[in-house]
C-alpha cells in the first residue's frame, strides 16, 4: 500500500445503451452525480478528478478529456485524463488511487465515459486507426480480425471447443437480466451463440459485446477522511498495470502475459500469495466470451487452459465458489470502452458491500478483483478490493 490507504466510498453508473441522446459530458455528469450522492458528497468535497475516455476518434472530439472536464466535475480542479486504451476503465481507478495514496489529496472523483454512437456508420471503422500506419493499416484491418486470430490460437493450443466458450456468453447475458444498467440482457443458449452470424471465424455475433454509450464513476477517500463519508469503505489494496510490446504479431497470443504481470504487481501489493483461494469474486474483462477465460488464466485464477473447465462446472456462476462477471459483464451490460472498466469496479464495490440486490452472489466475499484489457493485445490493468 501507499503512503495513505485509499477506499472507494461511492459508486455511480448510467444505463448503457446503443445510442444515447445525451452528450458525453451529460453522461459523465449523471454517473459522477450518482457516485457523489452515494457517498453523501458534493463537488466541494472533491479535491481532484481523474477521468478517462478511450479513442477520441469515436466522437471526433480532439482532446476529448478537455471537452468532458466540466461534465466530470473537473471545473477549476486538478483534473487529469489517463489513458491505456481498453484498459483505461480499471486503470483510471488505479490512477485515482495514486492521486490519493500520494498524500496530496484526501478525495478523488474518478469518472469514465464513452460515446461510441457518434461514429458513423459504426464505431468499428474508427478502429482501423489503432493499427500501424505502414505495416497493418494498408490491409484495411478491423478489430475483429485480431480477436479472431487470438481466439483461434487459444482454442487450438488448449483444444477448447466453441461450445465451452459460448457458456461465458450465456452466463453473462443471463446475469445482466438483473442489472438495471444493462444494454443487452438476454436469455440465450449455447446453440443460439453457435447459430449466430459468423463475423470473423471463429467469432460469432453473440460472442461479442455490443458498442455502447455510457458512463460510470467512483469516489475515493483516504484513510484520514473515509469515516466522514461511509462506515462501509471498500479498500483498494492492490493495483497493477503492464504494457506489452507494440509488435503483437511477434508473440504467442494464446496467453496474456501482460495480464499476469499486472496481476502479480497487484497481488504483491495486496499481500496475496494464493489468488485462487484469496480472491473470492472477480470481474475479468469480457469484451468477447473467450476473453473472460483467457483473462482468468492470466490472472492466475486457474491453470492455463483450465478456465473453460471450471466454467463448465458452474464454479463461475453467481452461486459458484468463484463467481465471475456477476454484473453481466461487457457481454450483457455493454461495452462503452472506458466506462465498462469502471462499471466492473462499481459492481465489485456493490458486491463487497452486499448492495448488489438481485445480483448479489451466494458466497461470502471479502476480497474482489476487477481487470481490464486493451490496446493491441497489449495492456492489462488490475485492481484488488477488500472490505
Amino acid at each position, binding site marked *: *500500500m*501507499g*503512503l495513505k490507504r485509499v477506499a472507494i466510498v461511492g459508486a455511480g453508473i448510467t444505463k448503457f445503451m446503443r445510442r444515447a441522446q445525451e*452528450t458525453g459530458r451529460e453522461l459523465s455528469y449523471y454517473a459522477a452525480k450518482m457516485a457523489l450522492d452515494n457517498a453523501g458528497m458534493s463537488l466541494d468535497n472533491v479535491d481532484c478528478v481523474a477521468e478517462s475516455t*478511450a*479513442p*477520441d*476518434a469515436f466522437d*471526433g*472530439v*480532439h*482532446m*476529448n*478529456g*478537455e*471537452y468532458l*472536464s*466540466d461534465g466530470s466535475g*473537473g*471545473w*477549476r*480542479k*486538478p*483534473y*487529469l*485524463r*489517463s*489513458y*491505456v*486504451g*481498453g484498459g483505461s476503465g480499471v486503470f483510471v481507478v488505479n*490512477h485515482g488511487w*495514486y*492521486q490519493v*495514496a*500520494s*498524500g*496530496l489529496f484526501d478525495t478523488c472523483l474518478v469518472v469514465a465515459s464513452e460515446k461510441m454512437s457518434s461514429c458513423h456508420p459504426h464505431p468499428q471503422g*474508427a*478502429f482501423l*486507426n*489503432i493499427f500501424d*500506419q505502414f505495416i497493418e493499416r494498408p490491409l484495411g484491418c478491423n478489430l475483429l480480425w485480431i480477436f479472431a486470430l487470438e481466439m483461434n490460437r487459444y482454442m487450438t493450443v488448449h483444444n477448447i471447443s466453441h461450445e465451452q466458450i459460448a457458456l461465458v456468453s450465456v452466463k453473462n447475458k443471463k446475469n445482466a437480466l438483473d442489472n438495471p444498467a444493462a444494454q443487452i440482457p438476454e436469455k440465450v443458449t449455447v446453440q443460439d451463440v453457435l447459430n449466430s452470424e459468423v463475423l470473423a471465424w471463429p467469432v460469432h455475433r453473440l460472442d461479442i459485446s455490443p458498442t455502447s454509450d455510457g458512463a460510470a464513476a467512483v469516489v475515493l477517500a483516504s484513510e484520514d477522511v473515509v469515516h466522514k463519508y461511509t462506515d462501509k469503505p471498500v479498500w483498494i489494496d492492490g493495483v*497493477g*498495470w*503492464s*504494457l*506489452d*510490446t*507494440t*509488435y503483437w504479431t511477434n508473440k504467442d497470443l494464446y496467453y496474456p*502475459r*501482460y495480464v499476469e*504481470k*499486472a496481476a502479480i*504487481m497487484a497481488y504483491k*501489493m495486496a499481500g496475496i500469495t494464493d489468488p485462487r483461494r484469496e480472491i473470492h469474486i472477480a470481474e475479468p474483462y469480457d469484451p468477447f466470451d473467450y476473453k473472460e477465460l483467457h483473462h482468468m488464466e492470466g490472472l492466475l485464477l486457474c491453470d492455463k487452459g483450465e478456465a473453460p473447465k471450471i466454467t463448465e462446472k458452474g464454479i463461475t456462476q453467481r452461486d459458484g465458489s468463484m463467481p465471475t462477471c456477476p454484473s453481466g459483464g461487457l457481454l450483457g451490460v455493454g461495452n462503452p470502452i472506458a466506462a465498462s472498466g469502471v462499471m466492473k469496479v462499481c459492481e465489485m464495490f456493490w458486491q463487497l458491500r452486499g448492495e448488489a440486490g438481485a445480483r448479489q452472489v451466494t458466497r461470502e466475499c471479502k476480497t474482489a478483483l476487477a481487470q481490464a484489457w486493451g490496446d*493491441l493485445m*497489449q*495492456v492489462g490493468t488490475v485492481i484488488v478490493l477488500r472490505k
Partner: protein
Amino acid sequence: MAKNKVALIGYGIASYGALSPEVSYKEMMYEACSRAYQMAGINPRKEVDSFVTCSEDFDEGTSIFDEYVPDQMGAMLRPTQTIAGDGLQGVAAAVMQILTGRFEVVVVEAHSKASNITDHIGLLHFAADPVFTRPLLAHPYFLAGLEMRCFVSISGNTVIDAARVAMKNKNNALKNPLGVHGAKIDLEDVLMSEPTFEPLKKLDQANPADLGLCVVLASEERARKMGLSPVWITGMGWCTDSYQPERRDWCWPAYAKIASEMAYRQAGIQQPGKAFQLAEIDDTFSYKELQHLETIGLARVGEAGEKLEEGAFDLGGELAVNPSGGSLGCGWMLDATGLFRLIEVAKQLRGEANGYQVKDARAGIAQSWRGIPTATGAVCVLEV
C-alpha cells in the same frame, strides 16, 4: 523547502527543428529516453518502476496511441500509462506515483512530431465544442485575438509590451541550441508583422517544432542512495478551467492561478515574486507570458509590461523569464511543451545552460498551458 519532494535525476532531448523527415517519432523517443537514462545512470528495463507518456491521439494520427510507446522506451511489459495532457501533467502523475512510496523511479516522456500534421488548424476545429463552438467555423486562433484584446484593455499592459516579449524571447533563443525559431528582431519587426487576429500579429505567435523529451524522476531516498545531488521538484499544481470559452476569466486565467497556488502551498512559498531566479513561462502567444506572470504572482497586476521594459525579465535581470527563448524562440511542441519548460529550468539549476546560464540559480518555476482551445495548465517549482 517542501516536506515531500521528488528528485529529477536525468533528462534527455532529441531536437530536430521545424521539420524532421529523417527520423520517426519512435526514433526521437528512443534518442531522448536513452540520453535521459544515461544521465541518470539507470537501466530502464530493471531500474524504472513506472513510465508515463503524454500524447493526444489526433496529434499522432493514431487512435489509442499508447500502443506505440513501450518498445523504444525500454518499457515493454512494465507499468506504462499515458496522460492525455501536457508534459507537466505527466510529471504530476509521476510525482504522485513516487509519493505513494510504491515507486522509486518513474520516467516521463513527451514528444512533438508537429511537422506530420498537415492541417493543424483543421485539427484544432475538432477540439472545439461540437455543439456550441465548432459550427461557427471560425479559425480557432480568434480566441487568442479576443483574449489579447481583453487583456490589453483591462490589465494596463499594451500591445507594445506583448511585442517586447516576442522580441526578447526570439533573441534569447539565439543562444539556445533548441532555439530553432530564434531571430535577431526588434520591436518594429513584431509590430509591423502581418496582423492575424487583431491585435495579434504574426510574430506574436509561436510556430511548431519537432523534438523528443524525457525526464527521469526518483524518490528522495533513492536519489540520496545513488549519491546524486539532484534538482528537486518541491511543488506541483495543475488545473482545468471551464471548457466553455465564455465562462472563463479572460484576463487572468483561473487555471494558472489555481495551479500556482497549489504548487506554492506544497513548496512552502509565501512570496512567489521573490522566490525564483528564473521562470519558464508559457508564451504560446506573446501576451500570454505577461498574463501568466501576473496571474501566478511573479509580477504585480498591470506591471508585467513595465518591468519587462525595465529589463527585469532579461537574462541578468531580477527574474530571468524564458531565458531559453520559450515557445516563441524554440517552438510550440504540442504536449511536450510543458516538459521542455521543465527541462530548461532543470538545465539552469544544474548549471548546464551553456551561453545563457542564469547566475546563482537556486530556484526556478516552469508553467504550462495546453494551448487553444483549452483552459488547462500546470505549474512546477524546482529547487537545488
